[in-house]
């Protein structure tokens, strides 16, 4: 282990954090607008959450309690290594309990437990531009945002319905923020989309490789795009959690053997564990399993 005092608090130098905070403030002031920032090289590859880590680093204060989740789980490689990164470079407290955390960095999920005022949710974003796969030119997509020229977003949904009979976009589902900017919510399942709008926490989005930061301040309106006759639906696997029995949480499907047996479990491990600790037991759960 290297000498910990060689690092500034939370790894980044103060000037860089200052620059990122300015971008965050601008993002909060213009909800849904993608603010360019000078993304730094981080000691991890692009695609592992460099954007989220930089935003988290700029937000952290020594009193913070950090939670990191990857696909809802606290114990996957990405979550564990980012959590350890901040433990080592910032010496802050960490937690797995959603309610106890002040800053939560997430990849691909919003926690099931409702967030509260004062919490900050930091998303890792691979591609911040919702129009990117429809219009490859950056100059043109910026122009489209400027002029609110969003007809193309619905062309994508139209294509979904004409090809699949329904809106087949299941994650990365675009939202319109406060009737102005169309925003990419990062690849969260569309099940989580209703939690974006009116959320009590500050939601910050960091895209390291693409060098963009954007934000949803607390209680901001975020409406999922849809058609009048094909309204948005927050879908999930039609099942209850096999461990904790929760009927309304987002589920992962786990293949358990080579004969095709499977089980459905909550993707949010903290939510599932605390339910089991409170005595809720699903068909395959054991009372002894705790959170």
């Amino acid at each position, binding site marked *: 282990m290297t000498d910990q005092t060689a690092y500034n608090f939370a790894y980044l130098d103060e000037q860089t954090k200052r620059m990122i905070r300015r971008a965050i403030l601008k993002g909060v002031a213009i909800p849904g607008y993608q603010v360019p920032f000078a993304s730094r090289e981080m000691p991890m590859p692009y695609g592992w959450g460099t954007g989220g880590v930089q935003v988290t680093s700029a937000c952290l204060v020594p009193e913070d309690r950090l939670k990191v989740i990857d696909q809802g789980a606290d114990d996957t490689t990405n979550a564990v290594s980012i959590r350890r990164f901040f433990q080592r470079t910032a010496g802050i407290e960490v937690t797995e309990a959603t309610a106890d955390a002040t800053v939560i960095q997430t990849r691909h999920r919003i926690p099931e437990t409702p967030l509260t005022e004062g919490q900050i949710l930091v998303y890792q974003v691979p591609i911040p531009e919702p129009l990117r796969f429809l219009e490859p030119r950056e100059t043109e997509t910026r*122009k489209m945002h400027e002029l609110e020229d969003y007809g193309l977003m619905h*062309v994508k949904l139209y294509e979904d319905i004409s*090809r699949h009979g329904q809106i087949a976009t299941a994650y990365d589902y675009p939202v319109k923020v406060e009737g102005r900017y169309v925003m990419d919510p990062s690849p969260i399942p569309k099940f989580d989309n209703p939690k974006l709008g009116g959320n009590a926490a500050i939601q910050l989005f960091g895209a390291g490789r693409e060098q963009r930061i954007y934000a949803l301040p607390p209680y901001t309106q975020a409406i999922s795009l849809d058609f009048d006759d094909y309204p948005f639906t927050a879908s999930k696997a039609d099942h209850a959690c096999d461990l904790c029995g929760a009927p309304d949480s987002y589920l992962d499907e786990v293949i358990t053997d080579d004969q095709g047996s499977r089980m459905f479990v909550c993707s949010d491990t903290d939510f599932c564990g605390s339910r089991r600790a409170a005595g809720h037991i699903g068909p395959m759960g054991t009372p002894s399993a705790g959170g």
Partner: protein
Amino acid sequence: MSILAKMKMQPLLSVRDLAKFYGGRIGCADVGFDLYPGEVLGIVGESGSGKSTLLSCLAGHLAPDRGEVIFDTKEGLRDTVLMAEAARRRLARTDWAYVHQNPRDGLRMGVSAGGNVGERLMAVGARHYGQIRDAAVDWLGRVEIAADRVDDRPSAFSGGMQQRLQIARNLVTGPRLVFMDEPTGGLDVSVQARLLDLLRGLVREMGLSAIIVTHDLAVVRLLADRLMVMKGGYVVEQGLTDQVLDDPQHEYTQLLVSSVLQV
């Protein structure tokens, strides 16, 4: 409609002293004309004569260096050169249409025919899938594309079908002015003839005004009421189509008319 009746009407588009320079070279210069509702104007000339530059300036794709382009918008007469980009794009989505020479430039090749036709509707706020799809199928029928091709991508269409799809996609919002850049270029003659028939029908039926850039005199003979002949960036002759083609005054027009191959 008689010419006299048209004279009393407000022009849909009036162009004054329009000029566009590429550095020291002239793209087009000293262009001025009035286009009345329901009128079709042909612009002919050889390659490099400034036809496409002029059309791009009129349609707002290029910013002219001088002159004004007054369009009769729903809010009254407006100079589209001075207009804000947002307002100009709104015009381009509603009152205007632009048919490219190459349908690949005007279509989204990765999107189904129905999506292509529906895009303009969605851009102006249509949010009902069933209605958008009905409109798309209706328009495919009007340009003679079978309804069962609505979910096929344009890449599965022949060149003539792609061009007709591009026309359907442009006309679905009921524009008042259509810009066409060599709409029949690259099509074989029998397909050209059918497309011209179709265009003539649509223009008459919808009462469209159109500006057609072409180097094919047969196209303007069939479609255009009036004709402008360009050379070296300047308009050298303009007048009624039959008059210009049957009794050309300028030497370049005479050359152009006499160059047409007779079968």
